[in-house]
């Protein structure tokens, strides 16, 4: 990278960057915690938009916006979760904010938690700020990834889901995967089996990656699912 981009990446650069990104990660974690409460001041759509924004914005600016958002939320008495079913979205890559909007559209449900490739999981856990930065990054990226591509960790991932479901009071899980992502596609089936077994209703949804094109189809399934858990 040094050679190709004609830059000089120093140890200090890396440590500073890690610290900056960790700040954002902590803020997103706070956001996640806020959404776990019985009174939720932010819709799933807005929270997801905030998470996706982090994948395209310059980090300093993003951290600033996150700060503002959280400050605003701490002062607001708004509760968007009142009388609605609390849902969780999990699965493969989705930067499709329209999808979450579709789920929350008819105001019967609110998305209070997620475990998607973008979003809280993408940000993942904090990277060690004290260790050698390259080692810390390698360990963080390879060791903490919760993508089903990391084989052999199904039980760990199931435990993470169960914990999140409990903390956020989730009443239904929407499991989406993009077509051809066999990893999420098949693991979602295992999750469905194990979560339904403990009484958590699940909906599996396979979709195309890209802008939301199958509104009618998705709408029909989400409606039926909401009727089921009503």
């Amino acid at each position: 990278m040094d050679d190709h981009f004609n830059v000089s990446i120093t140890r200090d650069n890396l440590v500073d960057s890690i610290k900056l990104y960790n700040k954002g990660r902590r803020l997103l974690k706070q956001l996640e915690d806020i959404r776990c409460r019985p009174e939720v001041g932010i819709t799933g759509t807005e929270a997801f938009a905030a998470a996706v924004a982090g994948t395209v914005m310059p980090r300093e600016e993003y951290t600033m916006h996150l700060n503002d958002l959280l400050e605003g939320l701490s002062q607001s008495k708004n509760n968007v979760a009142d009388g609605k079913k609390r849902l969780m979205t999990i699965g493969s890559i989705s930067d499709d904010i329209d999808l979450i909007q579709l789920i929350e559209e008819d105001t019967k449900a609110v998305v209070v938690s997620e475990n998607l490739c973008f979003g809280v999981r993408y940000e993942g856990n904090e990277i060690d700020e004290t260790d050698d930065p390259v080692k810390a990054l390698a360990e963080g990226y390879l060791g903490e990834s919760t993508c089903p591509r990391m084989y052999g960790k199904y039980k760990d991932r199931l435990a993470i889901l169960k914990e999140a479901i409990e903390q956020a009071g989730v009443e239904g899980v929407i499991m989406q995967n993009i077509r051809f992502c066999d990893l999420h596609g098949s693991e979602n089936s295992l999750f469905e089996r194990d979560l339904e077994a403990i009484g958590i209703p699940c909906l599996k949804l396979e979709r195309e990656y890209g802008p939301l094109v199958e509104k009618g189809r998705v709408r029909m399934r989400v409606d039926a699912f909401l009727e089921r858990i009503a």
Partner: protein
Amino acid sequence: MITAGCDVGSLTSKAVLMKNKRIIGSYITKSRVKPEVSAREAMQGALQQAGISEDQITCCVGTGYGREKIPFVNVAVSEIACHGKGAKWLMPSVRTIIDIGGQDCKAMKIDASGKVIKFITNDKCASGTGRFLEVMARVLGINIEDLGRMSRKAKTPVILASTCTVWAQADVIKYLNSGYALEDIGAGINTAMANRIAILANTIKAEKDISMTGGVAKNEGVVTTLSKTLGQKIKVARKADPQLAGAIGAALFAEEHKTEQGGKQ
């Protein structure tokens, strides 16, 4: 109290009028481009059959893909829920419903009260839907109603490429040109269809009584082969046309809705 159910599908639109949980009028029509127009046509037909006027209807529930666009509908309910309810009315003992429409297929499990507890749909592609049979029947040059019977007379059903309707069509043409018996090809078509549906049914672990609704329920070849593949008997409703299941469920939901409202007042 007279209630109405209107099910606007992509190929056909259905309307059902019910009083005291009995059908007093029903109508099936080919769907038009605009769902409002199809719904209107179906409703007119049903009203005529029942010999009543629209203002005698207390409540109307709409379902199907076009349900939000129908102006005279009071409440919209998903077709999954409507199909579940309607299938239960058609056959009280039913627990698993397999609905094969013109352009999609769904399988659902209901509990004792008719509430849907599990469902799975496949509406991404033509194979496994009524469209598949339509296309194949046309290639064979027969009426789709005659396709079902062919399984009975077949000696060795052919194997078809079953994951893509276009390729299956090419296969059928080849078999025809190679002089295979028409019955064997027809049976192969029914079997390919049944196997696609079996995957859906098995995924939700179909339990008895299993009932089929939708137009394809009238194809005895598919029903018999599917029964054999699942190892369970599939019952076809006799109380009314199984194609009306969605509209019947909608009408029943309308009654529940009105009763609830009445109770609240």
